């Protein structure tokens, strides 16, 4: 410890003993203190005063209970304690009255329960006194006095509020909703007042809001309130206090529960909970008997049920403790509000629901911004005006669309489609024959139709060759049941997905458990299942079909039907069976030409029917390859059957053959004359999707969803199309509507999932993570495992982006497990691919490589060519990062060919760019430049701004190397503006540095410095240590040339350390080189040599560029070591290599080095001339820095020092 510091401490400690006002004087008086010390101490004192509870941790201390101090009857201040009125966690409240009995005033005296080393508790107590003293409001309890007792126990004296908690008050008085709202508004207004005075309550709950007999609410217990004036307590946000979770779980906001800093929004949240309770009697969450961990999860992740719905619930009638209130029922809740249950629910539905839910938003910024706003919105409701809560329910950031997501989303959504059956093949017979060009839909159901799911048929004969009948019967029956449009049939794809998820057997009749699962998963009202049996040749080759129609809710079998016929009479069998079922359901529309309707659902040729059915089954089982084969054969067998082509189109799409998909979709459309309007539209929509004509597909789906609003499949398909088209905003709107119209919107995970996709479009990681989490949760509840996987996969990506490594990993792991179990290799591949992102960021390249390789294996299994190319992009990038340049180049070129072949444009652009990076590092400048330019053109074509910007920087770097500095600067500027546009702060900072280097080369040191400083500041903010170190190296290089060798060396060392930690090979080499340079400037030759030597082995595994640069440094090193011939040899080698590659900038530098070497020799005149020539040519090319150095060399007298310019 230094003398000075010791003295500083001494003076500081002494000064602390004085009151703040007197300290100044003391410091001036004290002897032996110079001005500098005084200033230092004053600065520390100021900091001390502000840092009141900075770093204070507490409550490791055991509580020392107050020993036997009986307060009853004692005098506290002017008051005499009468009795105990209540006790809280850390304090007791007594009822007292004025000792002199002058006014018979009753007061409450609040005292700490315990005394101990609990700075925090004392602080809070002091806070309370302070905050209450500043508040003066009719609805906030008034502080009268405060002080400490003889035992030094602090106390507060307040008005004694005689009242009941607000929730009890409202119930006891049977207050109607409107009256409750009025009282609530009063509470809001008082909270608003407190906020206005900089006080956040932090513990708003009914027991802190008492209502007097006159109906006046009073806010109490600002005991844990904190001033939210940032100047005073900002420092406390750094630390969270252990064990001091002084809040009531039911009323705590997500941020409180997580220990994050609180704000005004926190009180809003608590008010929201209160409103919720007042409205419907229930708590938004059930947290009784839950551990703190569970509470945290529930509060932070669970979505509360809307008050209008909660009001109708009955709590279960389990036996209760004596002090617990009786269980709530819809009746009891409604009675307390002087209403009938149905009427209450109606009253709450809509605006009040929205208001409460807005206040309960998980994200603080989505809640009301102030208690006043909250109160106002309620006021609007009360006066019948539209409330703000119902406008944009979903808030999201700017819908800045990043084009490159389209492709990856398209694939992801195909997975979703195959798995989730977002678009199904719902067959429907039209009422009247209408020409193909007529686009109107005949039947427009106005009400929500009953829904039916045809679950499947058990093959009783167990013969392989009749297995296809199961699919065939399902498809046909679905069409048949849908005839007339009175029933909503769930598409075959959807049912198939559900069967996989629920592992449903194809049994004749479903057990109660399975039924319940089906209902939860599919949400259908009725299910049909059955069996079929080939009666054999003896019976004339007849097939018998047995069906059961069950009510999904009750499990009751409504009817059983049996029909039989020959293989040629399949249509008839199904038609008859279906008619009987429809009759049972009361929707029979018996028309003469019924059989023609069913016939559109299946090929008429038995062979084709069989192949089609088998192909369909494979497609639904994620086996696109097998599906393609079967369906191709089916198409050959019966080319005029439209649906084969439609299914085949899907298969091609899954395999990444867009062209083929489009062809098949066209055929499906052309041959779809007999299809109903609805199906024609569906086929059309798919054609547009295959052609990537999003605009048209959106139109098609929009029409469908407008006509069939009760069918969420269409709404979701529309959303998907909008997402693919990059219309994040529109997608959100559609989802909102869907949410409102869909019966089970709260339970349907697909809406949240679509939201998550839209969020990823807008790069809103927080929204993506939260909606994905919500989707996963809902999907779990309905047993939709594949949707869970899709949701977790999205969550994984979002969490990786916000740095939650462990959360991301576990999400991806779960997704992968599910996909693998279901045989969805495409999904599994996608997930593995996502998992690789994090290890790359952490420098664990081996892990990333393994993951990509695994993903590749999966992708190869699916035969998905796009997926395969994607994995190769990732893998080759890893090879590059590992320094395996040749391997990377080979793979990249290969892959580029693949991408071109399958016309995967995004891949082409990206791969070209990556390849160009490799070539640039191998100093193959012109090749790299050509690739960058091509990639740029492609990227522009598909609107991928991100790739565009990267290509621009690549071009710029190449131009610098080729000696076109001004051209390079222009490109950098363009790149910067693009990166700013799409908000890529990280890359923006990197480009700043590159531009800075170029400016430095031009000789504009000031500009370079400014740019570096800007970049550093951004990188510090972003916490990017690696990039920051890179910038420091650039700075160090600059400092070497501006006479700041020592600082340069320090910077280089510190950056070096960072590179070693993060295993950034190339940068380490550069750092050593700069270090060596700066050491040379300081004359430390051997230390410099050490640095160069450390770099040499690294360069062996580095790029050609690394080696070339190092060569020059080696040459200069040798010069310093007086090995002139060695130096010259090395420099000439470097020059030659640079010359060969057209590496102008390096060539100039090499020439300069040669000049330095020559100057150490004896050929002075030659040197001067050479240097002048160099100066000229450097200046001509804009290389101001080199020109300057050359000029200096030319002007120097003989025998230049070995340490260089």
């Amino acid at each position, binding site marked *: 410890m230094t003398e000075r510091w010791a003295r500083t401490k001494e003076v500081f400690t002494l000064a602390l003993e004085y009151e703040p006002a007197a300290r100044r004087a003391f410091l001036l008086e004290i002897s032996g203190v110079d001005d500098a010390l005084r200033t230092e101490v004053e600065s520390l004192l100021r*900091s001390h005063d502000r840092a009141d509870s900075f770093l204070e941790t507490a409550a490791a201390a055991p509580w020392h209970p107050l020993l036997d101090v009986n307060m009853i009857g004692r005098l506290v201040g002017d008051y005499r304690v009468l009795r105990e009125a209540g006790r809280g966690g850390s304090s007791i409240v007594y009822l007292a009255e004025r000792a002199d009995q002058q006014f018979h005033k009753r007061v409450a005296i609040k005292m700490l329960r315990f005394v101990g080393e609990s700075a925090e508790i004392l602080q809070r107590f002091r806070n309370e006194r302070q905050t209450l003293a500043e508040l003066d409001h009719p609805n906030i309890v008034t502080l009268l006095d405060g002080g400490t007792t003889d035992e030094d126990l602090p106390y507060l004296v307040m008005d004694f509020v005689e009242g009941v908690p607000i929730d009890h008050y409202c119930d006891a008085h049977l207050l109607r909703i409107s009256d409750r709202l009025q009282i609530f508004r009063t509470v809001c207004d008082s909270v608003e007042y407190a906020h206005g005075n900089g006080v956040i309550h932090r513990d708003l709950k009914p027991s802190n809001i008492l209502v007097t007999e006159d109906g006046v609410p009073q806010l109490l217990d600002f005991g844990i309130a904190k001033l939210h004036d940032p100047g005073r307590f900002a420092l406390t946000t750094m630390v969270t206090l252990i064990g001091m979770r002084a809040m009531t779980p039911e009323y705590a906001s997500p941020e409180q529960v*997580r220990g994050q800093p609180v704000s005004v929004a926190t009180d809003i949240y608590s008010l929201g909970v209160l409103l919720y309770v007042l409205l419907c009697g229930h708590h938004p969450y059930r947290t009784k008997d839950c551990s703190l961990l569970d509470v945290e999860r529930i509060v932070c992740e669970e979505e509360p049920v809307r008050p209008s719905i909660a009001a109708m619930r009955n709590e279960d009638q389990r036996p209760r403790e004596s002090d617990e209130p009786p269980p709530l029922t819809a009746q009891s809740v409604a009675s307390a509000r002087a209403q009938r249950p149905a009427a209450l629910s109606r009253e709450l539905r809509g605006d009040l629901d929205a208001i409460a839910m807005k206040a309960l938003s998980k994200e603080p910024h989505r809640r009301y911004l102030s208690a006043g706003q909250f109160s106002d919105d309620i006021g609007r409701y009360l006066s019948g005006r539209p409330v703000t809560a119902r406008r944009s329910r979903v808030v999201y950031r700017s819908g800045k669309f990043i084009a490159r997501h389209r*492709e*990856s989303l398209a694939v992801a959504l195909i997975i979703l489609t195959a798995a989730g059956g977002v678009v199904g093949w719902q067959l429907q017979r039209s009422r009247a024959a209408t020409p193909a060009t007529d686009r109107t839909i005949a039947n427009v159901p106005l009400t929500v139709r009953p829904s039916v799911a045809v679950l499947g048929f058990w093959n009783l004969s167990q013969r392989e060759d009749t297995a296809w009948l199961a699919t065939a019967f399902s498809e046909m029956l679905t069409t048949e049941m849908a005839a007339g449009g009175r029933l909503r049939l769930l598409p075959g794809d959807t049912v198939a997905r559900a069967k996989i998820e629920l592992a449903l057997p194809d049994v004749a009749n479903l057990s109660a458990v399975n039924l319940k699962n089906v209902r939860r998963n599919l949400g259908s009202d009725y299910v049909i299942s059955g069996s079929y049996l080939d009666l054999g040749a003896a019976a004339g080759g007849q097939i018998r079909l047995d069906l059961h129609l069950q009510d999904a809710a009750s499990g009751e079998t409504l009817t059983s039907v049996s029909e039989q016929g020959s293989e040629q009479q399949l249509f008839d069998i199904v038609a008859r069976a279906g008619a009987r079922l429809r009759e049972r359901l009361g929707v029979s529309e018996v028309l003469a030409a019924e059989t023609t309707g069913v016939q559109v659902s299946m090929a008429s040729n038995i062979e084709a029917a069989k192949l089609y059915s088998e192909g369909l089954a494979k497609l639904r089982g994620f086996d696109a390859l097998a599906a393609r084969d079967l369906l191709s054969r089916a198409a050959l067998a019966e080319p005029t059957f439209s649906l084969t082509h439609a299914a085949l189109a899907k298969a091609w799409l899954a395999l990444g053959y867009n062209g083929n998909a489009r062809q098949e979709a066209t055929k499906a459309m052309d041959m779809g004359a007999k299809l109903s309007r609805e199906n024609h539209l569906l086929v059309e929509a798919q054609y547009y999707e295959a052609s990537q004509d999003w605009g048209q597909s959106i139109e098609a789906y929009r029409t469908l969803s407008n006509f069939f609003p009760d069918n969420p499949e269409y709404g979701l398909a529309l959303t998907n199309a909008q997402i693919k088209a990059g219309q994040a905003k529109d997608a959100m709107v559609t989802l909102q509507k869907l949410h409102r119209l869909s019966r089970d919107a709260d339970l349907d995970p697909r809406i949240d999932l679509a939201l998550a996709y839209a969020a990823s479009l807008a790069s809103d990681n927080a929204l993506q993570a939260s909606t994905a989490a919500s989707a996963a949760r809902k999907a779990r509840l309905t047993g939709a495992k594949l949707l869970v996987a899709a949701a977790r996969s999205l969550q994984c990506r979002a969490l990786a982006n916000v740095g939650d490594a462990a959360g991301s990993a576990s999400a991806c792991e779960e997704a992968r497990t599910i996909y693998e179990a279901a045989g969805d290799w495409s999904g599994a591949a996608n997930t593995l691919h996502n998992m690789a992102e994090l290890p790359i960021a*952490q420098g664990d390249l081996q892990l990333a490589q393994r993951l990509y390789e695994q993903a590749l294996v999966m992708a190869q299994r699916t035969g998905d060519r796009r997926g395969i190319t994607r994995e190769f*992009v990732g893998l080759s990038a890893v090879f590059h990062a590992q320094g395996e340049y040749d391997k990377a180049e080979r793979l990249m070129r290969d892959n580029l060919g693949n991408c071109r072949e399958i016309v995967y444009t995004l891949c082409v652009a990206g791969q070209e760019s990556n390849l160009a990076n490799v070539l640039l590092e191998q100093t193959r400048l012109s090749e790299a430049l050509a690739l960058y330019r091509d990639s740029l053109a492609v990227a522009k074509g598909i609107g991928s701004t991100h790739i565009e910007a990267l290509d621009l920087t690549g071009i710029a770097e190449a131009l610098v190397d080729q000696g076109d500095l001004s051209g390079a600067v222009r490109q950098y500027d363009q790149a910067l503006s693009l990166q700013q546009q799409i908000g890529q702060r990280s890359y923006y900072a990197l480009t700043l540095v590159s531009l800075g280097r170029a400016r430095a080369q031009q000789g504009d040191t000031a500009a370079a410095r400014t740019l570096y400083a800007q970049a550093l500041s951004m990188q510090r903010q972003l916490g990017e240590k690696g990039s920051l170190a890179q910038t420091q190296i650039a700075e160090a290089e600059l400092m070497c040339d501006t006479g700041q060798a020592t600082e340069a060396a320090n910077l280089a060392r510190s950056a070096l350390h960072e590179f070693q930690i993060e295993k950034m090979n190339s940068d380490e080499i550069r750092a050593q080189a700069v270090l060596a340079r700066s050491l040379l400037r300081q004359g430390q030759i051997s230390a410099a040599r050490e640095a160069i030597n450390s770099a040499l082995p690294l360069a062996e595994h580095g790029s050609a560029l690394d080696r070339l640069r190092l060569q020059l440094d080696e040459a200069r090193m040798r010069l310093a070591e007086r090995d002139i011939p060695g130096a010259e040899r090395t420099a000439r080698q470097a020059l030659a290599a640079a010359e060969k590659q057209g590496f102008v900038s390096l060539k100039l530098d090499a020439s300069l080095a040669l000049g330095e070497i020559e100057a150490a020799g004896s050929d002075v005149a030659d040197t001067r001339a050479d240097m002048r020539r160099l100066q000229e040519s450097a200046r001509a090319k804009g290389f101001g820095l080199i020109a300057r150095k050359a000029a200096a060399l030319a002007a120097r007298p003989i025998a230049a020092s070995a340490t260089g310019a």
Partner: protein
Amino acid sequence: MPKTSVPPIPEEAVASVYAELRRLAAFYLRRERSGHTLQPTALVHEAFLRMTQQREVEWKNKNQFLGIAAPLMRRILVDYSRGRHAAKRGGNVKHIDLDQAELPVFERSANIVALDEALVALAALDPLQARIVELRFFSGLNIDQTADVIGISASTVKREWNIAKAWLARELHGPDS
């Protein structure tokens, strides 16, 4: 130098404490959202409970444990924070990956890392103060406990603590922020 009031701890014991702390940290940190600070003292106390329950090591007293745990906890948190923020490979390796969203970008500064660095600076100036802060912040020791672990008087701890706080606050937040 102040003497410790308890005998030195065997290496294995330290290693097992470290392992336990890491496990717990990983568990809690998994549930963290970005920008959220962990409650290090809660973690340390929980580790103590678990380890005594499992009878992994006989601790002379809790303070001894807390004294060991503090620097370990610090290391874990700093490593974690650092790891979180090492987002980019940097410079020349601007790979385009086709299925990912933007490369991770962290919008908040690393509080723990900043504190750690400030503590390193403080240690150069005043090792005792740095140790006091480390014990109090990462293990939640109060004045008396800290005094016990280090082996100095409580009043000394209090005095040094005040100064250290002022110094660190200034270091981290600027002289007049």
